[in-house]
């Protein structure tokens, strides 16, 4: 156990950074470049605290505690330094929260509000970058980037793709792919991890633009229907409609990470093209019922109900089994089903039909 004082209060902790120990003891320290899912970086200087004996202020997010340490997290010096950093960030930021996708969900906005930085004392050049909407799924507005490098770390540490990095030095430094290309011309896999950790409106989901603010949507945690991994995520729902998928960090399956399908492939949910009723081949219908049947939007198919459709399938399977033996039948199950459904499918194959010809797409 290490004993230290934070803001005059004696605290015992097994170890960790000043930030971790403070958080565990109910002392809030503001952060910007820090993200619980990423290795600490010490870049943004918003978490600066006073450590007795240190010539300069120290970042709480990286500084390890030690025996007898004395820390001040809210001294005038500390607050002044944080305000200074925010003033600098604001002096290079398009102040257009009104139309910004992240408004209400932006960590920079929250801090500017908390520290009351109405105006910045610094006038000077601001970055001018064209809005980069040339890619599918992701819009990059580098004028809103605060160079916290969370996206870079997510791409490296979570996704292990390293599609993006910092280029240039000084004021011209910028998050970019190598040679500053479009994401689709890099090795980016459009997993969107970078968006999920970006504290500002610099990286946003293209298809969700304008569909709803954070406070207008409700988060519904669910499991991704696409594959057997079974990632968890949050559906952001506004007025009964899904408008966005965001990471759900506290789950043991994927710990916030997603792939391109899970994160960006939600539009099918409300598509008019979705099959909501079973279809049967028109010829089969005519054979079985002797009528033309209800026309569907698909040529050669008629709409039907589950009863009729399943009857036809069961009959077909039984005929195949009796005429050509059970191994004439093979069943390929889907990873979009639950484990229980897949269990039942193999029961159907093995016990009812009597074949081992059963497989599953997640195995491919």
């Amino acid at each position, binding site marked *: 156990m290490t004993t230290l004082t934070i803001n005059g209060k004696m605290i015992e902790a097994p170890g960790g950074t000043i930030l971790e120990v403070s958080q565990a003891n109910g002392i809030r320290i503001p952060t910007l470049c820090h993200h619980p899912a990423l290795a600490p*970086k*010490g*870049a*943004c*200087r918003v978490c*600066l605290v006073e450590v007795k004996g240190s010539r*300069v*202020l*120290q*970042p709480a997010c*990286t*500084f*390890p505690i030690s025996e007898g340490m004395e820390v001040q997290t809210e001294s005038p*010096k500390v607050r*002044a*330094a944080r305000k*200074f*950093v925010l003033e*600098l*960030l604001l*002096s*290079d930021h398009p102040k257009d929260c009104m139309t910004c996708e992240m408004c209400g969900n932006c960590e920079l906005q929250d801090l500017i509000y908390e520290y009351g930085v109405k105006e910045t*004392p*610094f006038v*000077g*050049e601001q970055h001018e970058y064209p809005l980069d909407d040339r890619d599918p799924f992701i819009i990059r507005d580098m004028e809103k980037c*605060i*160079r916290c*490098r969370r996206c870079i770390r997510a791409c490296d540490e979570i996704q292990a793709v390293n599609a993006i*990095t*910092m280029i*240039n*030095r*000084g*004021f*011209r*430094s910028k998050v970019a792919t190598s040679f500053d290309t479009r994401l689709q011309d890099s090795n980016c896999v459009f997993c969107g991890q970078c968006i999920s950790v970006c504290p500002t409106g610099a990286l946003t989901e293209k298809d969700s633009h304008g569909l709803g603010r954070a406070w207008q949507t409700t988060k519904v945690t669910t499991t991704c229907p696409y594959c057997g991994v079974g990632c968890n995520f949050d559906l952001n729902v506004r007025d009964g409609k899904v408008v966005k998928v965001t990471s759900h960090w506290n789950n043991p399956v994927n710990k916030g990470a997603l792939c391109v399908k899970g994160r960006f492939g939600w539009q099918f949910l409300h598509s008019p093209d979705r099959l909501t009723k079973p279809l049967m081949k028109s010829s089969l219908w005519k054979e079985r019922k002797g009528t033309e049947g209800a026309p569907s939007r698909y040529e050669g198919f008629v709409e039907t109900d589950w009863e009729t459709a399943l009857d036809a399938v069961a009959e077909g399977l039984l005929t195949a089994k009796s005429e050509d033996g059970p191994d004439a039948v093979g069943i390929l199950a889907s990873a979009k089903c639950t484990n229980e459904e897949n269990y039942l499918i193999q029961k159907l194959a093995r016990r009812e039909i009597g074949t081992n010809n059963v497989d599953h797409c997640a195995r491919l």
Partner: protein
Amino acid sequence: MTLKELERIRAKAQKELAVRGVEIPPDSELKPPRPGEVRVVLRNCGLIDPERIEDYIAKDGYFALYKVLNMAPEQVIDEAKRSGLRGRGGAGFPPGQKWFFARQAVAARPAPTDGTPPAYLICNGDEGDPGAFMDRAVLEGDPNSVLEGMAIAAYAMGATQGYIYVRAEYPVAVEHLRTAIPQARRLGLLGKNIFGKDFDFDVDIRIGAGAFVCGEETALIDSIEGRRGEPRPRPPFPAVSGLWGKPTSVNNVETLANVPQIFLNGADWFAAMGTEKSKGTKTFAIAGKVKNAGLIEVPMGITMREIIYDIGGGILNKKKFKAAQTGGPLGGCLPAKYLDTPIDFESLAAAGSLMGSGGLIVLDENDCMVDVARFFMDFTQDESCGKCPPCCLGTKRLLEILTRMTQAAGTAEDMQTLEYLTQNIATASLCALGQGSVNPVVTTMRHFRDEYEAHVNEKFCPSGVCKGMFHYEILADVCNGCGACRKKCPDKVIKGDKKVVHEIDLPNCIVCGDCYKACKFEAIAIRPGPTPKSRLPERR
């Protein structure tokens, strides 16, 4: 390699060297030592062939390593501490202490079982200060002294692999290292079981792309690991967790080149040079308005006056000394009142500057201090890694204000903003680049506030540097009508008959400064206000 063999090589090489002889080539930046200089680090430079290890051995090379390998590592560390040697890369931290911490960290971990080294030693040869070339001179002129220093350091701290990080702009240094390392390996002075002892050590070269920030030790480690060099917060210090997470000591070229000499001649010999807390010698690259610019090595504690006037030969063109920038772009500008301050780590820090790696730029009365501050800020802003806002954005705002001031657009508010920025950048930046970036501004503001005020309040550059902020006037009571200025004026706007006071036709003068330089009688003065032809366009 055994002691006997080494002695045999030395005897033979000494004879050969005496016959063959080597001399500092006349075009070299390194001149033979001037009175007042003491050469420890540079002692072999120019006097041996850097591409022949035998030449180095002739000068007792690798005898210190032999001596050290017969001592316990702890003894080596103690001896290094006792010598009072401090790091020459800028911060002045004692290398013995660094090796001690690294050794402790090695002992605290289980020995690696995967064949990787237990710890690393890095020689920092990035040398990014503009105008500094001390480390280059050592790497080019005496690479083996650095290799021997590295081997000693590695033994003391417990490293088995070393890297020399050299900037790509130093091709000759790289070439000489590429010759020296295999030669040392061939003689068994690098590699396994050096001098038959249980000590393995090898060295590889890593070439940097010339970013100033990659000289910062944690950024340098990133760069060797193959990533973009960006400083990391400390702790953990590299001595505990550095290159690939292993205990690592980063030492400067000059620091390491001192090490063999300390063990050859004893810690007491070294500690006898210099001041109480700054021992030994220091190399300086003197540049600017001084007669003998170039590389020198002097005992610590020497005054700036001795360097500039006795060794440097004084100020060019009989001008007046105004200030000296020590410590490179992160150092400070010291005015004449510091001429007699001893140059050592403490005194320079007390004066608001730095020892840095040893750049020394001499400025005279025609250097504008606001413009000098702007120049250094331009450099640091360009070289900031961009990781933390105080430095990345703060130096940008500083640069913008200083630029405005030198373009007749500064305001009184700008003065306050400058102070606000410098105070906060110094305490909030992540690394010493950001923290030190404000030093040129802080020191020039402290010592030359009148110049800042003239720029801001009167839009006047008293040194006659900032375009559009002054004009020339011929002083009627001084001018003797020699006509030198008239002949030099490119626009022929100076009128006057022989032996009669001359006059500048101001409405047509472009303020090029040719007359000012031509006048031998100080009859031309710098006055506030632009001429119509030198006025800057209105800023929007």
